């Protein structure tokens, strides 16, 4: 091998730039090593290593947050560093930490191995982070499939539960289908763009920049447009946008609670991160087509999500269906971002508040859940506030924030999106969003109502059906921090806005 080649490898592959991802990958490998070398009775400490790795990376990313100026293309254009990428990193690291926390609550009940779980979570996290920073369709697809395959496993992780496996299978088939659609889209784009030579350097339709330039020059190329829309469709599967939202309730319900949270938060956020990049950069010249497509999608998603959640009684399905409506609001932000750049920040703000609230809600669900946690009805929350004031309060804050009730962070998220939408003159969509919010009040309220207003669940022998849940100090702290952050961000947004809306 020639030295030039090695030099080229060294030049184009600036590994330092993906340090966080690499550390996570190494830590993931380390977990497996530890599993081999440590005696069995100490395996329960191994996930702590994963947590430590996540925390370390998180601290590192936050400390070096501004070190990355953005716009740098690395790995021969595979990766593009950006401020949004940094935000996404922080987001995914945070979310994964919380997922591991939830896993520490749920997994011991089923006695499924936690090391493998942590490993997969770490790898998926790294892949998520790369996914949002990718600048190349090959990179994009590979990272996406890594994430997806990780999720196939995670969703069916409780293999003793037929529901978990069924959810896994449904996710698998539909995920593969959507991947196929997305891949076909990539192929079409690749084919349409063909071979582009700029300054003697050959570019292909895999590169984001090239695609954007091509679309600029050929805004009515059918193959490219079809490809772009198919790619959007594939991403729509991730974010659960109409009509690709159909898998969500089943899979959310069947998946183990931590995985549901992971899907609901990280997978959805990754979808939006990618969508923002695609819509605002790669397919930006197609905005004339994208605007109606995304608008219809957003409206349908909001309405469909809220309406179908209206009568839902299963807590995880409810989270899923309401999550669809949240995707709708976020799509509204994405549509707005076509004209109002600040909408991007609003979308990220919304995602953060959504993460805080969802994770808190899933935390409560995790504590209340039993081994077979797919059948949890809203009724089981009856009188929670009385039996367990702490969990009741957390639930109230979380659900309140999801509903967008004002002093809480969720409201601020919605507000920013609405302001952006208003500035973008999306009045029709706003009206739909308002209707959606009003409908959502009903079912979220029903949840809080169960926890606070209803009489207690009485088992067959007249005993309270709720098992006595003990909450560890860490668990209590985590949930408190989530709830407090949700409240605090409602009042004082500086920590987040100073960062997202620069």
């Amino acid at each position, binding site marked *: 091998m020639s030295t030039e080649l090695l030099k080229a490898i060294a030049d184009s592959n600036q590994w330092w730039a993906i340090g966080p991802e690499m550390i996570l990958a190494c830590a993931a490998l380390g977990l497996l090593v530890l599993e081999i070398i440590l005696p069995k009775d100490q395996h329960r400490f191994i996930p702590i290593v994963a947590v430590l790795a996540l925390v370390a990376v998180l601290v590192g990313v936050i400390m070096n947050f501004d070190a990355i100026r953005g716009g740098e293309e690395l790995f021969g254009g595979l990766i593009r560093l950006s401020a949004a990428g940094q935000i996404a990193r922080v987001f995914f690291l945070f979310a994964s930490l919380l997922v591991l926390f939830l896993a520490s609550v749920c997994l011991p009940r089923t006695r499924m191995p936690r090391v493998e779980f942590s490993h997969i979570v770490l790898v998926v996290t790294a892949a998520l982070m790369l996914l949002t920073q990718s600048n190349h369709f090959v990179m994009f697809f590979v990272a996406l499939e890594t994430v997806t395959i990780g999720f196939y496993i995670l969703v069916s992780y409780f293999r003793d539960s037929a529901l978990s496996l069924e959810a896994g299978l449904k996710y698998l088939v539909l995920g593969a289908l959507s991947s196929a*659609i997305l891949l076909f889209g990539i192929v079409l784009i690749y084919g349409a763009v063909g071979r582009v030579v700029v300054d003697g350097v050959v570019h292909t339709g895999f590169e984001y920049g090239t695609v954007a330039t091509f679309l600029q020059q050929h805004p009515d190329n059918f193959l490219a447009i*079809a490809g772009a829309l198919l790619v959007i469709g594939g991403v729509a599967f991730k974010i659960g946008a109409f009509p690709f939202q159909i898998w969500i309730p089943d899979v959310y319900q069947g998946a183990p609670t931590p995985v549901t949270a992971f899907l609901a938060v990280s997978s959805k956020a990754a979808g939006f991160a990618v969508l923002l990049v695609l819509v605002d950069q790669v397919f930006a010249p197609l905005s004339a087509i994208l605007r109606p497509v995304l608008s219809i999608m957003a409206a349908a998603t909001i309405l469909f999500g809220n*309406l*179908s959640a209206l009568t839902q009684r299963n807590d995880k399905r409810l989270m899923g269906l309401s999550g669809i409506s949240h995707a709708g609001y976020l799509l509204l932000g994405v549509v707005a971002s076509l004209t109002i750049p600040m909408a991007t920040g609003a979308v990220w703000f919304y995602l953060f508040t959504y993460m805080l609230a969802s994770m808190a809600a899933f935390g409560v669900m995790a504590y209340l859940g039993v081994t077979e946690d797919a059948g949890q009805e809203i009724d089981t929350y009856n009188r929670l506030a009385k039996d367990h004031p702490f969990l009741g309060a957390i639930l109230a804050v979380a659900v309140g924030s999801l509903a967008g009730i004002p002093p809480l962070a969720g409201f601020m998220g919605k507000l920013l999106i609405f302001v952006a939408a208003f500035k973008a003159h999306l009045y029709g969509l706003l009206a739909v969003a308002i209707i959606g919010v009003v409908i959502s009040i009903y079912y979220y309220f029903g949840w809080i109502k169960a926890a606070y207003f209803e009489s207690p669940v009485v088992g067959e022998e007249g005993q309270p059906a709720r098992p006595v849940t003990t909450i560890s100090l860490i668990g209590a702290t985590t949930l408190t921090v989530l709830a407090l952050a949700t409240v605090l961000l409602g009042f004082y947004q500086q920590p987040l806005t100073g960062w997202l809306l620069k």
Partner: protein
Amino acid sequence: MLPVNTAILTLLIPLASATLIALFLRKHGALASWISTIAAGVIAVFSLQLLFGGARNFPASWEWIRFGDFAISLGVKFDDLAALMLLIVGVVGLCVHVFSLGYMHDDGARARFFGGLSLFMFSMIGIVLADNLFMIFIFWELVGVSSYVLINHYCEKQSASDAAKKAFIVNRVGDFGFLLGIIMCYWLNHTVNLSELAEHHVFSTAIPLLLFCGALGKSAQMPLQVWLPDAMEGPTPVSALIHAATMVAAGIYMLCRIEPLMVPQALNVIMWIGTITALYAALCAIVQSDIKKVLAYSTLSQLGYMVAAFGLGALEMKIYPLGLPRVGHPEDIAALETVGRGFLAAGVGAAMFHLTTHAFFKGLLFLGSGSVIHGCHHEQDIFKMGGLKGKMPITFVTFTIGVLAIIGMPGLAGFFSKDAILYLALEKNAAVFAILVFTAVLTAFYMIRMWKITFFGSARSENASHAHESGLSMTLPLLLLAALSVAGGYSGVFGKLAGSVALLVPEPEGAKHMTMLLTSLAILIVGVGSAWFFYPAASTDALEEKSPGLFGVLEWLKESFDRLYNYYVAKIQQRFAMLLNFLDQIFLAGLIIRGFAGLVGLVGYGARALYTGSLHVYVYWFLLGAVVLWAFAAGVF
């Protein structure tokens, strides 16, 4: 002390008294009653001082509230009219207070009673002193509420509670027009200050008629007269003060205040309403057996006289050569002002004259009846009384003076004032004159009936046989009022009290004088004679026995209004309310709102049902998505 300060103090002293009693003296009835009575005494002294001090029309005005151009001010207009009215309120008020010391001595809620009296004095003086219509309205409402509180004194009695409510609501109905009139007046004239209005105002028929609605309620004229007889549920001193002497007269006073705004058409209406009320009430009074009810209907009747007197002032229009003022011709209006006013004021004079004398003798009669009731251990049915003449001599004598005064015995106050009214009627309108004369006959008839049955014969019940003369605190006011009932009609006295108002009282001249005297005597003889001989001092009503048909007609007349109103309230208003309630709760809240919510819920169920759990169906969704996206790319949409 400057007159203006005295005036303000007169207004504020009763307020202070009421506040003090409400806050601290709730359980100290004796102290409360003395404080209230002393306050009344001070008011009486001040009112005399103001009356005879001679200071008039001193400027006094403070802004109370202002939004933009709209402002309400608190001001005093103190002219002869106000001075006279203030005196009446002060003197009768003091009498009633003193009387109440004895009458209410054993009442458990004495403090509330005297607090209410003080509140009433405050409100009434407010009306008297007010220099603008807004302010009149404010105190107008306040007398209403003090009347409510006092009628409701025996609030454990359902009838008292109902009567109080009725009085308040009926007054509100009157105030509906009053308030609209004031507002209209404000926007048309851009002021509601009485002095400014007198100087310059736009002529309009609607304004005086709307304003008259207020008097309709407060002075209990047809068709809003229904509350006054019921108001007799209150303690008797209250009936004397509020429902005979002062508050019900406030309507007349108010009319006199706004007299410059009057136009002939409005006066005509006012006159007829007063006349009809006078007749109607007199007819009703004949069949009453409750001593206070008789007096109440008599009050109504007398108020009708006053209103009629006020209204009569307009009939001189026929001497006005240019006819009615035409729209858009200011010179017509100017002419009307210069020519018509002197004649109009005759009504004011007669009305105020009768108001004054009526306040004295009707106050006397009510207090007398209070003394009787007190003496008979709260027996109010005249047919269960009898023979009180000997047992309650002072009461009997003073009551007799009152009766004689009201039926117009020459030489007593009522004779002069009634004469003035009848003369005015004779001059202006023969029909009214005839009706009023007939009413006067009826007045004599029913008063003598009551008087005879109450005081003569023998005791017809346990309570009456144990009757006793009342104490000094009750007889003293009787004596004072009796003296005023005798003297109040003489121009020497009334002229002193009323000042320039007295000059407006019409006096028959020459032959007319004789006519009037003869008419009065005829009235007296017919009325007194027929009653005296018709009614024995027995325990049953002679009319009911001898002519049940006539009696029944009169009874029906009395009750028809109540029946009508009750029918309206129970069958129309309540049913309408129930209907609207049904529409609101069942139709709007239930059918529309819940129905809509249910519809959304159904759609929700539908949307939820799409998640069938079947993988194949889900794949079709994906196909749909892909096809739609493809179609978008192909430009189908």
